[in-house]
């Protein structure tokens, strides 16, 4: 069976919510970062699927996903830098321990 738009959308929605769930429940910052990557990838999937099924002769969705991938890479670099620094100062990468940034 050829996968249709709905299949892909189902997949991306599932990915998205898994990501959200992961982001909200995990305490490990690395896992949270991974969850964010899941969310971003679900968006990428959406872009590509819409591009392919609805406007096959345009490339907009493709470009957007490329941008998102690039940004995700940059973001991961920054985030990991932050996490490393956090680890150095707090000796932990548990998000519960990183709540200094408050009122």
């Amino acid at each position: 069976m050829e996968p249709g738009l709905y299949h892909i959308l189902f997949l991306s929605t599932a990915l998205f919510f898994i990501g959200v769930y992961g982001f909200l429940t995990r305490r490990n910052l690395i896992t949270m970062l991974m969850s964010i990557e899941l969310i971003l990838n679900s968006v990428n999937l959406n872009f590509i699927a819409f591009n392919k099924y609805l406007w096959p002769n345009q490339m907009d969705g493709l470009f957007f996903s490329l941008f998102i991938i690039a940004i995700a890479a940059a973001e991961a670099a920054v985030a990991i830098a932050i996490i490393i620094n956090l680890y150095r100062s707090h000796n932990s990468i548990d998000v519960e321990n990183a709540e200094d940034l408050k009122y």
Partner: protein
Amino acid sequence: MPNVTAIALIPLLPLAGFLLLGLFGRKYLKNSSGLIGTVLLLASTILALYTAYEYFFVYGNVGGVYQKFVPLQLTWLEFSPGVSIDMGLIIDPISVMMLVVVTFISLMVHIYSLGYLKGEERFPTYFSYLGLFTFSMLGLVLASNIFQIYIFWELVGVSSFLLIGYYYDKPSAVAACKKAFIVTRFADLGFLIGILILSFSGGTLDFSTLIERLTSPESNAFKTAAASTFLGASALTWGAALVFIGGAGKSAMFPLHIWLPDAMEGPTPVSALIHAATMVVAGVYLVARLFPIFSITVPGVLEIIGWVGAISAIIAAIIACTQTDIKRVLAYSTMSQIGYMMFALGVSNYGGEAGLGYTASMFHLFTHAMFKALLFLGAGAVIHYVHSNDMKDMGGLRKLLPITHITFLIACLAIAGVPPFAGFFSKEEILLAAFQNNMAIYYIALITSGITAFYMFRLYFNIFWNKPHHAHGENKSEGGFVMMLPLILLAISAAAAGFIPFGEFVSSDGRLLESHFHLSFSIAPVALAVVGIFTALWLYKKENDKPAKFASSMGGAYKAAYNKFYIDEVYLFITKKVLFNLIGRPAAWFDKNVVDGLMNLIGTITEYISEGIKKIQSGRVQQYAIYFLGGVIFLAALFIYLLK
């Protein structure tokens, strides 16, 4: 025609003195300052005499009527077309008469002060203040515009303040100058509102136009003003009455007189100039200036003026009998005599024979200026000699101060109304005017003149007779030529001024007023005066216990009079208790706690709320993410289901 330059220079010369001495006196003119002030004033006096001569004998009288000239009028501040404050010079009989009085007395005081205040540290300051006062007073006299008179009115008030407070390191002097300023200021509030009413009704601030419009019943201004009423009295009545309150304050009329006795804290020559001869008669002058309005338009107010004058005259005379500070006695005597001038205006009518009271009032103003200045300067000489104001420290000075003694006696006779001294003639006319118009006031005046003779001679005997004088170093001289010269000159004026045929020069409508001399009429006042003098002689010539016995037999009445009928206490109660405690303190409290509190409350509430909501900012990333998610879901739901 009037010589504008000469007239304008009369007030400007003292002003120049004020500026010169005020700016450079302390540093550069320390020793010559008195002389500079005196010379400038001498020039001013000569110009005033010249103006008076020219006016009365050369150009003033046209067809039997003394004309009013306004030789100079400069717009100072324009409010709206026709309504402007002008700086002008008015030349009419009363202003010319006042010019002479003010410059002459001021000159005498200047000369006298050269001796009296010799060696004072603030000598230049004193003369600069005198210059300021003389300038302001002359400006007041020459004012051609009701607002101009108000301006100079305030300026004389402030120069009086400065001079009373001349000994600024004496707390009593500070209190006195504040009191004088504030009480007259209160009266000036009435004056100001009166000006607003009158000028609005008349559509002008110019004296001549104002009088013209408000005295002719046909004019529009008159009709509208008479039609608009407030609390049952017409706008004009209110306006005139309020203007009179201003005059009453400056002239120390009951019940606004409380500042005058305290004002004696100033140097004695100042009291002679300001608080006896010139500034305190400004109220009388003001009423005289607006006399047509008072007399023709609002006779009711004029009657009030009459009664206020009469009551002031008798109350002040009674209080004067009990005081022991010689300057205070003179102060109350001044108040009493101004009361005479006031009620003389009050019983007068406008024009012709019926205007006798007006002439008499101005005449008395003139003679009073001479003998009262003399009395004060004489008292100054005595104080200079014994270094005390109190009668108890005096007595038996007649041998030690011969010139002072003679001149003081002349002044006492003049004020008591003994012929042929000046006071007799002017008082005679006042009594006659009262007799013709208001018998009640006439009797009050008659009794007062008896009391006047009594208290003046009480003063005289206590200073110069009574006990023999021994306490002080006897080698001191009387005060030198500069102090004696004014006394002698003033004594001559006080003796002779009565023979001036005043009615020929000054009358309510500018026409000649024959003064009739009734021998039978003068018997009663002269007899009363003589009785008064002899009572004083009997009581005070020798030191004895009669006065004390007499006082104790009077009991409460004496005590009340000694305490000035407790009027000061009433005022003190009103200001200290009511104004400060019931208005000032609550206002300050209200501001600090309620108004400011409200602002602080807003601040506190804001702080409190933010204290509550800042908990949301917990620092937990995942919590934020949940809020965010919730927000997104909420918005999504909103857009999908509600805002389709």
